[in-house]
């Protein structure tokens, strides 16, 4: 699972480490150089102070001082004397660590302090005032009355202090980097954990356990919201799988009963010789069972086709009143057999749709109204068009639908009475609903129990 280059955790860690390293390096480099510059400035201040002191002392001395029998340089003009008070001289003693060298024209110094290192070269540029020479920092001034005054000191101590400082910076930086990487690992692990949990749950669901859910307690983060979204998706999936499974089980259940009839009738008929009338009875029972199976299979196929959206509805302008009228003529004999009266009020109701499918909606609703009606009852059928809508209303005077059943009557295989009642497949209303919805319309049921039910279909004109 944790393959090195692909893992988000590793990539985050690498980026995080690189950024942290860059920040630390920039910080350390800056700190080191600031410290180094500050050191040099401090050293240079000390040097400049002493240069001024020397220059002042040189200028204070008379240009042609009294002869003292001292060794003279090769210069034509005698060099000025360097007179230092003891306090001034103390600035250049071994303890102070400073030295000076003074030149006139020519490269040989005319004077140097006692502790000046041997062979200090005369600075040649005029453009700079300080230089590094090995472990020595030297500052100089080209100024009258001499040609060049140089003051220097060894900065070996400061250099080693700086190196120590660099080492400390590097050590602290490395420590911070390690701590940062560790913290980063912990953070990414924490951040990735919900992702891993989501992926583990998704894997279990993919393996077939649809009841699995991601734990979302206390996760208000983006991942928590993702988990909520996934959970609701999983719930919908489980719901539709469950619905499908129930539907299949119901279909199988409803096919089992007619098969039982056929098996029982035939096995019992075959058990002995019988008069012809008994065989006829058996065959008739088998025929009824087979017809029922045929109706059920046709309804199941119809629903499957509607679900799959296989056959696109052919849409044409049609009149709901005409379709209803044809359906009424088709079912009038069935209603008459039970003394049920069709009362019609068919105003033109133009709509867009597939006339054959809409005719099925009408016959399903009418059969329903006949089957659940009382004997010698009424079915009122009306159509009308208004405000760009076509409406069909079928009202019966039957037993009605209890309020708690109303939300379920369009559910497949739902029957008001749990048992099989006559020729019902339990799919008629579900099919009617599927067809109406495929047309972009709506179907509704209302009922006053004991007085009858009203079904209303609305389609776009």
């Amino acid at each position, binding site marked *: 699972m944790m393959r090195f280059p692909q893992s988000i955790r590793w990539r985050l860690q690498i980026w995080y480490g690189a950024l942290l390293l860059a920040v630390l390096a920039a910080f350390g480099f800056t700190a080191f150089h600031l410290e180094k510059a500050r050191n040099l400035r401090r050293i240079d201040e000390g040097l400049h102070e002493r240069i001024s002191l020397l220059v002042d002392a040189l200028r204070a001395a008379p240009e042609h001082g009294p002869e003292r029998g001292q060794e003279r340089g090769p210069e034509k003009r005698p060099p000025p004397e360097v007179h230092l008070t003891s306090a001034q001289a103390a600035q250049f003693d071994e303890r102070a660590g400073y030295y000076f060298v003074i030149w006139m024209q020519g490269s040989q110094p005319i004077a140097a302090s006692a502790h000046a290192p041997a062979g200090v070269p005369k600075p040649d540029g005029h453009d700079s005032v300080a230089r590094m020479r090995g472990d020595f920092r030297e500052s100089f001034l080209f100024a009258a009355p001499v040609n060049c005054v140089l003051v220097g000191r060894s900065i070996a101590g400061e250099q080693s202090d700086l190196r120590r400082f660099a080492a400390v910076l590097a050590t602290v930086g490395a420590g911070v980097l390690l701590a940062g990487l560790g913290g980063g690992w912990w953070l990414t692990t924490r951040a990735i954990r919900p992702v891993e949990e989501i992926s583990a749950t998704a894997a279990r669901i993919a393996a077939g356990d649809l009841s699995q859910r991601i734990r979302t307690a206390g996760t208000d983060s983006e991942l928590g919201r993702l988990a909520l979204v996934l959970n609701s998706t999983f719930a919908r999936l489980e719901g539709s799988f469950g619905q499908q499974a129930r539907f299949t*089980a119901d279909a*199988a*259940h*409803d096919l*089992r*009963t007619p*098969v*039982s*009839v*056929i*098996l*029982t*009738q035939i*096995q*019992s008929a075959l*058990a*002995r010789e019988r008069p012809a009338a008994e065989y006829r009875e*058996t065959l008739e*029972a088998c025929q*009824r*069972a087979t017809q029922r199976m045929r109706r059920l299979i046709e309804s199941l196929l119809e629903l499957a086709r509607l679900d799959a959206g296989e056959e696109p509805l052919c849409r044409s302008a049609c009149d709901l009143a005409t379709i209803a009228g044809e359906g009424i003529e088709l079912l009038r004999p069935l209603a008459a057999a039970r003394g049920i009266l069709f009362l019609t009020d068919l105003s033109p109701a133009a709509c867009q749709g597939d006339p054959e499918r809409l005719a099925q909606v009408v016959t399903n609703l009418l059969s329903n109204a006949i089957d659940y009606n009382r004997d010698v009852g009424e079915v009122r059928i009306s159509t009308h068009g208004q405000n760009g809508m076509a409406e069909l209303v079928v009202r019966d005077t039957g037993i009605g639908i209890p309020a708690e059943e109303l939300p379920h009557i369009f559910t497949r295989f739902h029957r008001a*009475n*749990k*048992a*099989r*009642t006559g020729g019902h497949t339990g799919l008629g209303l579900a099919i009617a609903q599927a067809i109406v919805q495929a047309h972009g319309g709506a179907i509704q049921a209302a009922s006053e129990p004991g007085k009858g039910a009203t079904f209303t279909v609305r389609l776009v004109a």
Partner: protein
Amino acid sequence: MRILVVEDEPDLLRGLARALREEGYAVDTADDGEDGLFKAESVAYDAIVLDVMLPSLDGWQVLQRLRATRKTPVLLLTARDRTVDRVRGLDLGADDYLVKPFDLSELLARLRALIRRSASEARPVIEIGDVRLDIADRSVERAGQAVVLTAREYALVEYLALHRGEVVTRSTLYEHLFDENEDTLSNLLDVHVSNVRKKLGHDFIATRRGHGYCVEG
């Protein structure tokens, strides 16, 4: 043996009743739960075949209410074949469970087994003197010779054999040998008893005056 069949699909109910009657059972029928429960509570059936999906009261409810008063063996008949449904049926007090669609021969065999078990008879063969009764294939032999009995005569012999050693009253016999539609003339039973005695020996069925009949074990 008297059996109640509760089933709402009319063709299945008729087919089952015909098959059971031809096997020599007295068969009562009910096509909804309420009627079924009423009959099951008022008559001492030897077994009840009960469909689960029924109008008015479903099979579970009928079973639950019946168990408050009677121990009649119940065979549940249903199209629901999930394990939870079977467990529920058996836990509610059903004695057996058969899933639709079923073979008639299996239903009959299970009914025979149910009735035998409820009479605490583990083996399907009962021997009384020189009479040998095979409940599985409904045959009777006397001294090794097959004896032909009518369905009603066989039912009488089987009932008395399953309750051998007990005195069975005439009304009990009427209750178990005749269904609700038969006009039970009181001498019909005497005719059957007399015919059985002719075929299996006069001493096979003893008469306890004022009490009933008895087959000695």
